[in-house]
């Protein structure tokens, strides 16, 4: 055989072997239906540019499959069905995708608005709610069919349609959320049926940008962008009312530029204090969960974006806004000191702990990988290749109020 032909055959054979290796090592699309497995240790990683998610196994510290076709996932979030089988992924383009984690496929998908920011699932798993920017408001859907059952436009007292933020589920078939443009907090109660009774609290503060509820479902806190303070609703008190806490935490000082909004996420049930990001200050503010007064501050590496507590509550892992977004601070909630600071990778977007706090998964968007660290020793225990990873969500969220 002429030399050039032999070389060509070698080239083709090498190419085929390379393809074979790539095919074998790429997560396969479908789990065989006769392979029984649980879903309690599964999760998803959002691939924000590709519009896909990875289904991951936190025991194996590996990706199992990729599911594509979820639309614009550039600010995606997810909730899980009570049986931890399905993820409902809320995309920026108003898409809601119900993903079957066991078959790694899309069970249902709907585009329900022009621009959406997040969602929540009812305490009994029967309904999901989506908070929308465009049109502003909250829409509620049956969890099995994704048929719309309620549409709640967020028209504030000022008469303008508002973007909605900070949507969380509450016990008793209720949701709470804030109206960004109108400066209000609404609590929608579906316990009587599909027509909700909506309680509207107005003048709670300027530009509420996110909200969350404590793990007992009692205290709803909303961060304000337009002023230094946080709005607080004690949901066990009747009539429902919002009070201002941490007022003037900026002490009249010039705010630093905020290149990415902080988030109210990652709160855990333990201890008597909560660490929340300051806006325009490179600090976390420690709030006492009985008095709701400030009990201290932690100076951090940059503008905190997420302050995620380890499940035992003892340490809080913090990531930061651009341009200091390659670093993570670990804060001790007792001493309010940063006990560890390290560079995890370019553009750390999100962190999620395994349910009992053994590992923490960290997305490094511009490294195209998710890193897994030991949550006690900070040792790196694994990594998962992912295309521009952002949010990481584990199925254990299905068992928690407000998640």
């Amino acid at each position, binding site marked *: 055989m002429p030399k050039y032909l032999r070389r060509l055959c070698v080239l083709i054979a090498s190419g085929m072997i390379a393809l074979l290796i790539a095919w074998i090592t790429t997560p396969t699309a479908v789990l065989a239906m006769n392979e029984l497995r649980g879903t309690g240790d599964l999760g998803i990683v959002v691939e924000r540019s590709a519009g896909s998610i990875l289904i991951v196994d936190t025991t194996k510290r590996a990706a199992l499959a990729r599911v594509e076709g979820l639309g614009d996932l550039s600010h995606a979030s997810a909730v899980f069905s009570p049986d931890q089988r399905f993820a409902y992924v809320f995309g920026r383009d108003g898409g809601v995708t119900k993903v079957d984690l066991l078959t790694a496929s899309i069970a249902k998908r709907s585009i329900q608005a022009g621009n959406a920011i997040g969602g929540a699932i009812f305490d009994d798993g029967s309904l999901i709610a989506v908070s929308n920017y465009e049109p502003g408001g909250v829409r509620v859907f049956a969890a099995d069919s994704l048929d719309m059952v309620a549409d709640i436009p967020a028209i504030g007292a000022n008469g303008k349609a508002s973007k909605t933020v900070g949507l969380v589920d509450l016990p008793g078939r209720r949701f709470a959320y804030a109206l960004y443009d109108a400066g209000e907090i609404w609590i929608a109660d579906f316990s009587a049926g599909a027509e909700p009774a909506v309680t509207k609290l107005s003048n709670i503060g300027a530009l509420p940008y996110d909200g969350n509820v404590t793990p007992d479902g009692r205290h709803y806190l909303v961060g304000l962008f337009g002023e230094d303070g946080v709005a607080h609703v004690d949901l066990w008190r009747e009539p429902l009312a919002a009070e201002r806490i941490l007022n003037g935490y900026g002490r009249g000082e010039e705010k630093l530029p905020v*290149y990415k909004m902080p988030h109210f996420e990652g709160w855990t049930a333990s201890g008597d204090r909560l660490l929340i990001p300051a806006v325009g200050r490179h600090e976390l503010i420690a709030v006492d969960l009985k008095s709701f007064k400030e009990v201290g501050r932690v100076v951090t590496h940059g503008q905190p974006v997420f302050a995620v507590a380890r499940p035992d509550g003892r340490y809080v892992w913090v990531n930061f806004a651009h341009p200091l977004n390659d670093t993570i601070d670990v804060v001790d909630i007792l001493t309010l000191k940063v006990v560890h600071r390290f560079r995890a990778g370019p553009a750390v977007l999100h962190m999620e702990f395994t349910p009992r706090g053994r590992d923490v998964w960290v997305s490094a968007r511009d490294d195209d990988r998710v890193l897994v660290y030991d949550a006690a020793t900070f040792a790196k225990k694994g990594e998962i290749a992912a295309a521009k990873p952002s949010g990481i969500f584990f199925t254990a969220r299905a068992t928690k109020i407000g998640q």
Partner: protein
Amino acid sequence: MSKRLYPKTRPSPSAAVLGLIAALAAMPAIPPVRGEEIAASARLSNLVRQDCGSCHGLTLKGGLGKPLTAESLTAWDRDQLAAIILDGVPGTPMPPWRRLLTEAEARVIADMLKEGALK
């Protein structure tokens, strides 16, 4: 022995490589500035899509921040956009990027947005 379909004498591979090197050497050198410009605009595109995109959307169709598609920006000229990028909009979440971007970079971004040229 199969019929030889190609001429017996043909350029050897080493001759071809030498020829290629000679051709490249004869080409005018790519000015280093142009190469840096390409890298800079790739970096700025990534910044706009990923970091500005936190508020304005990866596809620039908006989010907390306004849409930045070329169609949405027809009322603004490039210098106005560059000024907004550098100095922000006080009282709103749009921050001033002056500490992180030069005026030239802000103009490059403004041009890219006006042209709808972001990849």
